[in-house]
């Protein structure tokens, strides 16, 4: 893909003049118009575009909200209510931003499961995948800090609990954890000082994400997109130009996504939130039951499943960090789970584990819930550390089609046969 030449032709004298000085139109044309896209991409491949849309929506609505928000312990909660009630269309922009965070995570989880199912992390896409994991991590930090800014009870106690995770380092070097927590807080408890710095970082990190997304797309366009067969593009017939084919498919999927988005914004803006966050932060009373936003629940369940403070914290961070090593933990010769009769069962077991952990994270940490959280936490890690390496070795993959074109048109379909025969799959 890297050697793909743009077919851009400047259409005016100005365009030609520009092209000789800064060929940005040539680059955009080459990367986003005639870029070769596998012809068999399904709708799961539309979530990259959808996620770019989410990032833009969050940045645009976020900049507007920042114009009306007051980042101090005294004013933050009231200024959010002010935005919702007094600012022109503030209710709309605030709802889009709040629901947008959920939609962003919804899309990113589908995007990640798609990558796991079709082996999109396997060579040569390791760096592409790792940049994606880093984006996910920065997204989580951004979402967490943004939730703080509302300064409701859940905001306040959520921050208290999560920042206190670092105090577990006291168990490694006495006093280290306390020092770090006080450094994060800028005091001896979560206060307006903490709110203020989280506000600054919450404004900064989305632009860091935008930069990481540029790297993510760059590396994607160097190695080319994966596809449901997991085969490489070997002949011209295997691909179609990105525009109009992939672009139209992306736009159609995006419009369905926006429909769901709009339904939540207009009809159920608080459905994914928590009622306690409409009570202003009170440092003297902890809500009876603290839960993070839904998109953090699986990790929260892992944190609580381990009966030691430091151990729980390590397991929670390890649950994310382990994704970095997936390209090397998976020993299978084929990429796509579609051709992996044994692994496919484990894949769905993994999906079920993640959903179950999400459910358990919302339940109180007692009795049978803790027991099940331990079972699914165990499987979560076993999936990466045992299933991925072992199944990849013992499993015999199904017969792969000879080419992407054959997978679409059947054997002998189109003129692909000769091309595919000329470049047989070697893996």
């Amino acid at each position, binding site marked *: 893909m890297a050697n793909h030449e743009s077919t851009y032709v400047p259409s005016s004298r100005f365009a030609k003049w520009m092209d000789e000085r800064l060929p940005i139109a040539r680059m955009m044309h080459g990367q986003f118009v005639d870029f070769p896209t596998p012809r068999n991409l399904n709708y799961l491949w539309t979530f990259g575009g959808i996620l770019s849309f989410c990032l833009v929506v969050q940045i645009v609505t976020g900049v507007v909200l920042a114009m009306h928000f007051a980042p101090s312990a005294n004013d933050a909660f009231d200024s959010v209510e002010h935005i919702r009630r007094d600012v022109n269309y503030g209710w709309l922009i605030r709802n889009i931003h709040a629901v947008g965070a959920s939609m962003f995570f919804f899309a990113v989880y589908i995007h990640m499961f798609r990558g796991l199912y079709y082996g999109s992390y396997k060579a040569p896409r390791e760096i592409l995948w790792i940049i994606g994991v880093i984006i996910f991590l920065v997204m989580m930090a951004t979402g967490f800090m943004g939730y703080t800014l509302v300064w409701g009870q859940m905001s306040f*106690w959520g921050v208290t609990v999560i920042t206190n995770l670092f105090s577990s380092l006291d168990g490694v070097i006495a006093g280290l954890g306390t020092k770090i927590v006080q450094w994060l807080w800028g005091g001896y*408890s979560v206060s307006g000082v903490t709110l203020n710095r989280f506000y600054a970082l919450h404004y900064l990190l989305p632009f860091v994400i935008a930069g990481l997304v540029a790297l993510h797309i760059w590396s994607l366009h160097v190695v080319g997109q994966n596809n449901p067969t997991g085969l490489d593009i070997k002949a011209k017939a295997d691909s179609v130009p990105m525009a109009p084919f992939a672009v139209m498919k992306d736009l159609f999927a995006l419009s369905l996504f926006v429909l769901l988005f709009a339904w939540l914004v207009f009809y159920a803006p608080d459905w994914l939130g928590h009622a306690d966050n409409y009570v202003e932060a009170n440092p*003297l009373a*902890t809500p009876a*039951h*603290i839960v993070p936003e839904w998109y953090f629940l699986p990790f929260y369940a892992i944190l*609580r499943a381990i009966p030691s403070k430091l151990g729980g914290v390590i397991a929670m961070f390890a649950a994310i960090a382990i994704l970095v090593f997936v390209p090397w933990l998976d020993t299978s010769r084929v990429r796509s789970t579609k051709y992996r009769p044994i692994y496919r069962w484990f894949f769905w077991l993994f999906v079920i584990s993640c959903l179950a952990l999400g459910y358990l994270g919302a339940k*109180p940490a007692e009795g049978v819930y803790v027991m099940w959280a331990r079972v699914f936490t165990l499987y979560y890690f076993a999936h990466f550390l045992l299933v991925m390496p072992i199944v990849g070795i013992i499993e015999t993959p199904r017969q792969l089609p000879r080419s992407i074109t054959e997978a679409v048109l059947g054997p002998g379909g189109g003129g692909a046969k000769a091309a595919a025969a000329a470049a047989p799959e070697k893996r």
Partner: protein
Amino acid sequence: MSATADKADHPTRRDILSVAGQTFAGVGGALALWPFISQMNPDASTQALASVEIDLKPVKEGQAITVMWRGKPVFIRNRTKTEIESAQKVAAKDLVDPSARNEAMTDRAPGTDANRVKKGKENWLVLVGICTHLGCIPKGQSMADQKGEYGGWFCPCHGSHYDTSGRIRKGPAPRNLDVPPYEFVSDSKIKIG
């Protein structure tokens, strides 16, 4: 570096100068970073160890009050006879956290009830009311609260049970509730901090 490529095993004057220069710039850069890290630490106004004086007269036996000190809640409980006795009965070696966690004592001081109160004022228990697990405020201050299996405090976040001396007995919290620095300035008045 191409100038020195032919004799890589003999560092030249230029190599030494560039290593020294890069080291100097590196150390300088690292030092310049420190103010930007340190500015996040608690500032002077926060550090100024404000002390508060509390009048204990209105707190009857069995009652508890919560006051603010350094932005943290401090629990003050006027313990009943049975509460004191049940706290004194526990041997330090049976505790999850055997340390007294009293700022007036060393970390080695055993977590007996006597080490967590002032002599002659055994009914007054003064604690930083922050769960040592993840910083929630445990329940148990008001009469109607759930006080946990040991009659002290119960943290609703992740289910830690504290006894009537504020020591962790069950649940994920690793340490006993801290005893802040305080003293009796008169028979019924204390100064925290």
